[in-house]
């Protein structure tokens, strides 16, 4: 494992504001995890595509999640990028990630079987095969193993 990036405390306020606004506007159900400096920097660099941020249930890791397609498409397989951070904002390479999810209200999973297909470096991992087949509230769950620790991170968001 490696800490692939250092802290970038610049532009903290603006990025924080942008993230909070996104979480509010998107009706994101993620509990308001405080984004770290790195997470904020990554979110800032993402231009107009929103980035979700969420803390692990055990607090070992922080994840950011970003779709390659915006707005989120229905009935189309597409990819996401997930980044893994320590709680204090350092990016983590060589993490093991498993992804699954679905619509808890409807008690079904994805119609596809998404997978983490590549480690992109700089704490980033590619998630392929994501497909939303109906509008509504969806969840993406990540089981994360890194630095000898396990954690589970649950993102919740609306597909229009």
């Amino acid at each position, binding site marked *: 494992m490696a800490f692939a990036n250092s802290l970038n405390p610049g532009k903290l306020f603006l990025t924080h504001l942008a993230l909070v606004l996104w979480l509010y506007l998107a009706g994101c159900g993620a509990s308001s995890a405080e984004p770290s400096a790195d997470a904020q920097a990554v979110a800032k660099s993402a231009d107009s595509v929103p980035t979700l941020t969420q803390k692990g249930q055990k607090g070992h890791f922080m994840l950011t999640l970003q779709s390659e397609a915006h707005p989120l498409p229905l009935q189309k397989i597409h990819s996401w990028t997930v980044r893994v951070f320590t709680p204090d904002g350092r990016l983590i390479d060589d993490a093991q990630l498993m992804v699954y999810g679905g619509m808890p209200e409807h008690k079904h999973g994805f119609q596809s079987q998404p997978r983490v297909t590549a480690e992109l470096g700089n704490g980033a991992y590619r998630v*392929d095969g994501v497909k939303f087949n109906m509008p509504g509230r969806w969840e993406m769950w990540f089981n994360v193993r890194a630095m000898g620790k396990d954690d589970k991170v649950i993102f919740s968001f609306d597909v229009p």
Partner: protein
Amino acid sequence: MINSTKLVIASEAQQSLDSKSVAWRLLRYRRVSFRALRSSFMPSGCNDELIGASLTIKRYMVLCLLALLVQPASAIGETDQSDAPSWTPAELATLRSLWIGSLPPLPPDRSNAVADDAGAAALGQKIFFDIRFSANGEVACGSCHQPQRYFTDGLGQAEGVGKTQRGAPTIVGSAYSPWYFWDGRRDSQWSQALGPLESALEHGGSRLQYAHLLRDDTDYRKRYEAVFGPLPDLSDRQRFPDTAGPSADRKINDRWQAMTEQDREIITRIFVNIGKALAAYQRRLVPGGGRFDAYVQALTEGEDAVSTEAALSRDEIAGLRLFVGKAMCIRCHNGPMFTDHGFHNIGVPFAEGLNRDWGRYQGVRKVLKDEFNCLGEYSDAGKEDCAELRFAKTARDETIGAFKTPTLRNVTETAPYMHSGQFASLDEVLEHYRRPPRAPIGHTDLVPIELTAEEIEQLKAFLHTLSGPPAVAAELLSAASQ
């Protein structure tokens, strides 16, 4: 004096009607004030100005009575208008997502290099309606996919040379689907078309039989070679028997196995090209709009247009509201094809006399090892074009007893319903959704829905608005023009 009074009355009456019209429009948007409404309800000609215009009480009463006589007719029209529901911007967006106008251009089929080739489509159309492509010379694709029945056959279980276990779904708009057959055991239109041709219960023929037919028929040979290049010489019947191919028929299968691998490959290429030509024709069968689509179009062009003949009835609109709301139909029947192209276990009972049907659980396993799938050697696609297959869900709990969500376009014209025609009518279908039974295999995705008898009727009324002929030239709907 009398003339000028009449003019005043006419002018006032017009103003009153105008204000009434405005008030009703406001009411539709739930922003109307009581005062505006009260003045609108007052009969035309009964206002303070006229009383003060030196009219006698008697004349005033006569005018009021006349106005009351005139009023009901216009008021009835206005009342109907007020019943047109107002849709929120979010609801309007939902309606537009179902609208035929939201149907994107035909998605490219990268697994089929001739998908958009006119010559291939013409060849495919000829094959589609040709009963020689069967074991008994009586079954064509068009036997079960009948154009006059929206490309279905009205049967619960399709009948070819034998009787199958599943219904023949419509093929209109199927080019938009990533999966074919009720269990999704094929992943392209061309590979789907090959299934029935070799099924012992459907066409009952073999790939050698079809290859010979193309080679020996002058017109077929000409059309085929124009698209796919020269057909090989198949005249050596020792090498290329009349009938041979992978088949449940042991003799046909044994002859196939006795052929060399190279010869089998030659024949399979021809067979695959038949599928690709059939797909080139079938992908042109795209749906047309129904009255629902005219309604949404009118809504998008401005509320007033709804009062035209495009408008739906009160019950149909109520049904639409249920469809996108309380009845939760839209969860799976979404998008302009009214399907999520997914697989769900909705606990439909097994058809009488038929075996347990595992649906998608078996379908996904078949397609993953299918020689004709997107990643296979006969596909023209690259790996990156095969995301649906590469990321197909196989989990037992989520595939067992699941079947593909069918389109609801023309649903009222394509009974019976479900994968084996278990339900004869929409009443039976809606009763199933209202009170879903325990699934005969796996677990049902459905939850009970509180729907009154009136609401069931409204939903049915709405479903009738989804009917419309395919948006294709008439010559594509028969073999006549060949």
